[in-house]
């Protein structure tokens, strides 16, 4: 969820791009998919027609045409469908990483809930209308959250953010996934049995996001465990004012990243904010072994108080990291691993990226690719300090993603590799790096490792 200061009435869009109209009903979504199916079919026809005509075409052109078609469709659908595509893409590099910016905008788009339905949600949960429950309640939402909307309320001296979930979101996510799965698998040329663990992982996370009671518990828990970290602020949650579909918390002051940057904060402030974020994530990854897996700019509120304070919102997407996964992940990022080819090999085998049944050439290919990726991704860990203010790092990270996409050998791989737990860990790292780069922060990265 995202949280605006009281004067900002417009819903927050992460990168200011206008949202095009979205087909929101199941029928409309299905129709959109059917259209993609037709176009993909047409691409095949074109492909074979060209080949029949003796033109020198290869399957890559076809995949490229299909991927473009699919991407166009998915970006219009947004919502959970896009999230699934995003996850698949992260592992397979089918869609370029550079588009992650656009993915950040992915939200469950539905028109705002009407006042009467908000009132009904409260009556269902508490047997009272929100006007009885709070001293003051704004019937018009201040902004849209990913699967609900946020209202401003007052109780006594407290200012509250009250998140109300759209009705039927959980079942709608399920039906969306049911809709996207067969089509996406066919278009991407994936085998259901092979991607099942990945899809299940994504499905679980998406459904968890609809459970506000869980989010409340996690929010309270992580806030408590991270209380000692400096310059961080967590909203207090109010269980007595929350239910499965309603979540009440403190209304935190602060601005979203982009608005905050427009106030031209000093480098010291930006460094302190960046450091707070870095420490927060390293503590979660290494100590708590569960991580706020949605480092989207809309989930943080920044302000310059006390040299820079970060407000952390939305614990809807929390990834718990199993011990063995944590061990592999840490070992993969350790500087000594990269210099030791045998060690890297055995770690990758353990992580399920390499298999003993793979041919020598394929092993070599994967090893080289992953060595390159890890060199880049692990770079901040190998230095005592890291300057995220230099955009070259993130650019080369995105370029690497594009490069991998271009590699014909990799594109022919029709089978995703690696542990399904890496999906959200990758997303967390890339998201964190992107945040820090935009913030232009200079961070002590070595100390926390």
């Amino acid at each position, binding site marked *: 969820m995202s949280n605006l200061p009281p004067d900002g009435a417009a819903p927050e869009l992460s990168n200011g791009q206008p949202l095009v109209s979205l087909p929101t*009903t199941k029928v409309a979504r299905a129709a959109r998919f059917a259209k993609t199916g037709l176009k993909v079919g047409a691409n095949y026809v074109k492909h074979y027609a060209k080949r029949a005509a003796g033109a020198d075409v290869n399957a890559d052109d076809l995949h490229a045409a299909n991927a473009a078609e699919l991407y166009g469709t998915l970006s219009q659908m947004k919502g959970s469908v896009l999230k699934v595509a995003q996850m698949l893409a992260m592992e397979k590099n089918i869609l370029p990483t550079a588009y992650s910016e656009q993915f950040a905008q992915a939200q469950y788009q539905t028109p705002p809930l009407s006042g009467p*339905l908000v009132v009904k949600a409260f009556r*269902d949960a508490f047997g009272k209308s929100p006007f009885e429950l709070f001293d003051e309640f704004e019937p018009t939402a201040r902004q849209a959250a990913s699967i609900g909307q946020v209202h401003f309320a007052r109780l006594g001296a407290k200012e509250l953010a009250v998140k109300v979930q759209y009705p039927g979101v959980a079942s709608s996510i399920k039906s969306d996934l049911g809709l996207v799965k067969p089509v996406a698998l066919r278009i991407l040329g994936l085998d259901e049995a092979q991607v099942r663990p990945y899809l299940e992982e994504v499905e679980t996370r998406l459904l968890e996001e609809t459970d506000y009671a869980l989010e409340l518990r996690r929010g309270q828990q992580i806030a408590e465990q991270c209380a000692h970290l400096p310059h961080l602020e967590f909203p207090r949650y109010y269980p007595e004012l929350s239910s499965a579909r309603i979540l009440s918390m403190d209304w935190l002051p602060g601005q979203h990243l982009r608005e905050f940057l427009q106030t031209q904060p000093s480098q010291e402030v930006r460094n302190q904010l960046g450091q707070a974020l870095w420490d927060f994530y390293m503590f979660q990854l290494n100590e708590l072994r569960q991580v706020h897996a949605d480092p989207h700019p809309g989930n943080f509120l920044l302000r310059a108080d006390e040299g820079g304070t970060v407000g952390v919102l939305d614990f809807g997407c929390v990834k718990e990291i199993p011990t063995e996964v944590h061990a592999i992940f840490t070992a993969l990022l350790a500087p000594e691993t990269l210099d030791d080819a045998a060690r890297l090999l055995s770690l990758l085998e353990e992580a399920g990226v390499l298999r003993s049944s793979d041919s020598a050439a394929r092993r070599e290919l994967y090893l080289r690719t992953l060595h390159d990726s890890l060199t880049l991704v692990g770079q901040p860990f190998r230095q005592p300090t890291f300057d995220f203010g230099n955009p070259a790092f993130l650019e080369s990270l995105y370029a690497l993603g594009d490069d991998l996409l271009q590699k014909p050998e990799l594109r022919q791989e029709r089978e995703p590799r690696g542990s399904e737990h890496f999906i959200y860990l990758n997303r967390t790292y890339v998201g964190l790096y992107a945040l820090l780069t935009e913030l232009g922060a200079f961070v002590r990265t070595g100390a926390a490792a």
Partner: protein
Amino acid sequence: MEKDRIKQAYFDYVLRKNTPPASVFKLTKKLGIPEAEFYRFYPNFEAIDREIWADFGRQAREQASKEPVWPEYSAREKLLGFYFTLLEILKQNRSYALQSLRRYMPEVPGLTPRVLDDFRQDFQAFVGGILRAGQNTDEVANRPVLQERYPRLFWQQALFVLGFFAKDNSLNFERTDAAVEKAVRLSFDLVGPNTFDSALDLARFLFQSRRR
């Protein structure tokens, strides 16, 4: 009051046995009143069913309008408020509602079950009032002739909502809530000033130009 006692006894009987009593005599005997007493209030059991449904509608309108923000609601929100309150009431009486609807379901789909006759009259009067008020706030376009038919069209929407609720198998009937939101938004998009009015305006203009 005797009338309420009869109504309540009938209601309980239908809930318990899932069918109306075999005869008026059986019900009145249970209540310990002479059969003639029944006919002072109702000609038959169907009249009681009609009245119970009308009661549901009346309660919904009363409860919805007790909401402190009711006076500030737009026409669309008032209709939504009514539907959501009605669905709350029906949820508490779902067994009876389903049972009675099934019993009076017309053979031809789309027709109104007779048991809803009184409910429908009140509903149409209520919607008519909302729409008239909506004209003052420009929420509803002024379309002579056509707008007299609005209440009937909205009744079809109410039937759709009831039908959706009857078939809904989602938890807490959340999908019905979503259906109501969407159906009401569509209906107010249709009755509000929209493309239709612009098209009609152009057509009228062209027609008048030709006559000149």
